C-alpha cells in the first residue's frame, strides 16, 4: 500500500453564486501521476486553486502529507511543498528570466545555483534568454519559464495546470518527458489537462470531471478503454 501524499475529501468551492466544485474527492499517492481530465469549466483549475489555498473551501478537507491544509494561506501551502504551475503562462513580466527562476527558489536559497543548472539543462532556450525581460518572451517560452520556476522550488508534490498550453508538439513531448523524469525521481504529480488523450496516456490514475463533479475515476488505462470517456473526451472515433 502506497503512502498517501494528498487527499482531498469532498470539497466544494463557489464563486459567488456559481458552484465551481461540488463534493470533489481525489487522492494522490506517493510516486504517482494523477491526471485530471475534463472539458472547459469542469473545475480542474478551481480544484488546483483550492488545494493551493487560492480559493476558499466551503466544505470538506484537504490533507497534504498528513497535515490539514484546508484554507491555509497560499504561501504556507507552497512552503510545505506543493508546487503549482499555474494556468496560462504566468511569469513576472518585468523581471528577467534569470530573476524569475531565482525567485522560484525562494525556499532554498542555498541550492539556487544547482537547481538553476538543472532547469537550464531541461530548457536550453531559457539559458539563451536568461537576461531577457520575461514579458518579451514568446508565449511558449513564458510557459517553459513558468514550469522551470516551479521546479526551482523542489516541490514534494507538483501540480500542473495545462502545462502544454501553447507549446510546440516537440516541446510538449519534452515537457511530458521532464515531468515523467521528475516522477521517476519520486515526485508525485497532479496534472490538469484538457488534452484527455495525452493526460490519460501519461497518468497512472485519472479523474474525469464535469461541471464541478468527478464523473469517473480509476487507473488511466482503464478509463482510456471506457467508451463513455472515449466518446466525450477523446473525440469519439479515436
Amino acid at each position: 500500500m502506497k503512502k498517501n501524499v494528498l487527499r482531498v475529501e469532498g470539497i466544494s468551492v463557489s464563486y459567488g453564486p456559481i458552484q465551481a466544485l461540488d463534493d470533489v474527492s481525489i487522492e494522490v499517492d506517493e510516486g504517482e501521476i494523477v491526471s485530471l481530465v475534463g472539458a472547459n469549466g469542469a473545475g480542474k483549475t478551481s480544484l488546483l486553486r483550492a488545494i493551493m489555498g487560492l480559493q476558499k473551501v466551503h466544505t470538506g478537507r484537504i490533507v497534504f502529507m498528513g497535515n490539514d491544509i484546508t484554507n491555509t494561506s497560499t504561501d504556507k501551502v507552497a512552503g510545505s511543498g506543493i508546487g503549482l504551475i499555474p494556468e496560462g503562462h504566468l511569469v513576472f513580466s518585468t523581471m528577467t528570466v534569470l530573476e524569475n527562476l531565482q525567485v522560484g527558489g525562494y525556499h532554498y536559497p542555498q541550492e539556487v545555483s544547482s537547481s538553476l543548472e538543472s532547469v537550464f539543462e531541461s530548457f536550453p532556450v531559457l539559458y539563451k534568454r536568461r537576461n531577457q525581460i520575461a514579458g518579451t518572451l514568446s508565449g511558449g517560452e513564458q510557459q517553459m519559464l513558468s514550469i522551470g520556476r516551479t521546479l526551482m522550488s523542489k516541490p514534494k508534490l507538483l501540480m500542473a495546470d495545462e502545462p502544454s498550453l501553447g507549446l510546440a508538439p516537440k516541446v510538449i513531448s519534452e515537457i511530458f518527458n521532464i515531468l515523467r523524469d521528475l516522477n521517476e525521481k519520486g515526485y508525485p504529480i497532479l496534472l490538469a489537462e484538457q488534452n484527455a488523450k495525452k493526460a490519460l496516456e501519461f497518468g497512472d490514475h485519472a479523474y474525469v470531471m464535469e461541471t464541478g463533479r468527478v464523473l469517473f475515476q480509476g487507473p488511466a488505462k482503464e478509463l482510456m478503454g471506457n467508451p463513455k470517456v472515449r466518446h466525450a473526451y477523446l473525440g469519439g472515433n479515436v
Partner: protein
Amino acid sequence: MEIFVAQLLNGLSLGSIYVLLVLGFNLMLVVAKIIQFAYPHLVVLSMYVCWGMLKYTNNMFLVVLASIVSCVIVNVAIEPIFRALSKKHGLDINVSFVVSISIALLITDVMSHALNYGFPIAFPTDWVGKSVLNFGLITFSVGQAYALIGGIAAVALFFYLLYRTRQGRVFRALSENSVLASIIGIPVVKTRILSYAIAGLLGGVTAVLFARLLGSASPSLGDFVAMKVVAVSILAGLGNLKGGLVCGLLLGIAESLAMGYLPGSWSNAIAFMMILIIMLIKPEGLFGIQI
C-alpha cells in the same frame, strides 16, 4: 566663475533633496507598485518627530532612532490601505495615486492643526553645521555634504538591494503579481510589510539628513517638493533608481542656476518648462520605465 561654482554646489545640495525623496518614491513604486505621492509628507512628518525628540534629549542616536522608527511605523501603518486597494483594484497605479494624494492631504492637515500649533519647526542652528569648504562664496556645509553623500550612497545601496539580492527580487516579484508570488511560496503579508518598513527606514534617515540640511520644516514642505519629486521620477522613467539619481541632481542644478542667473520671477517656471519640453519629446522618460 566663483559664483558659478557656488551655484553649482547649491544645485548639488538642492538636488540631493530630490534624489533622496525620488529614491524613496521610486522604492515604493518598485516594491509596491504604488505612486506614493505622500512620501515627502511622510518624511516631513518624521522631521517633526525628530524635532520633538530633540526637545527631550540631545542624544543623536536616540534622535535618529526616533525619526526612523516613526517613519517605519507610519509607512507600515498605511500598508493595509494599499494592500486592500491592490486586492480590489488589481494593480491600478492611478487609483493608488489618488489615494496617496488624500493621505498627503491628511498628513498636511494633521501637521498644520495639531503639531507645534501648526507653526514651522526649526532645528538647532548648529545642526546645519560648519562649512567643510569655504572660499569666498564657494561654501559647502556639513549638512549639505551629508545629504549629498547620503543620497548617492542610498541610491547605490538600494539599487544593490533591489536588483542584486535575493530579498530585492522577492520584493519586485511580489509587487508585480502577488498571487503568483504566493504560489511560489513568498509570504505575502510579511514581505509587503518588510518592503514598506524598508522604505520607511529610508524615509527616517532622509528626515534626519533634511533636518541637518534645511534646518527647519513646515507643514507645506511636503507639498512644495512632492510635485517635483513625481516630476523627476517620471522624467527619469518611473521606478528607475539610477535615472532618479541623475535627474534629481540635474533638476537641482538647473533650478539653482535658474534662480541664480535668470530674471527672478521666472526661474521656477523655467525649470518646469524644461521638464515639460523633455516630457513632450520623450514621453517614456529619459532613462526608460523600470517597473
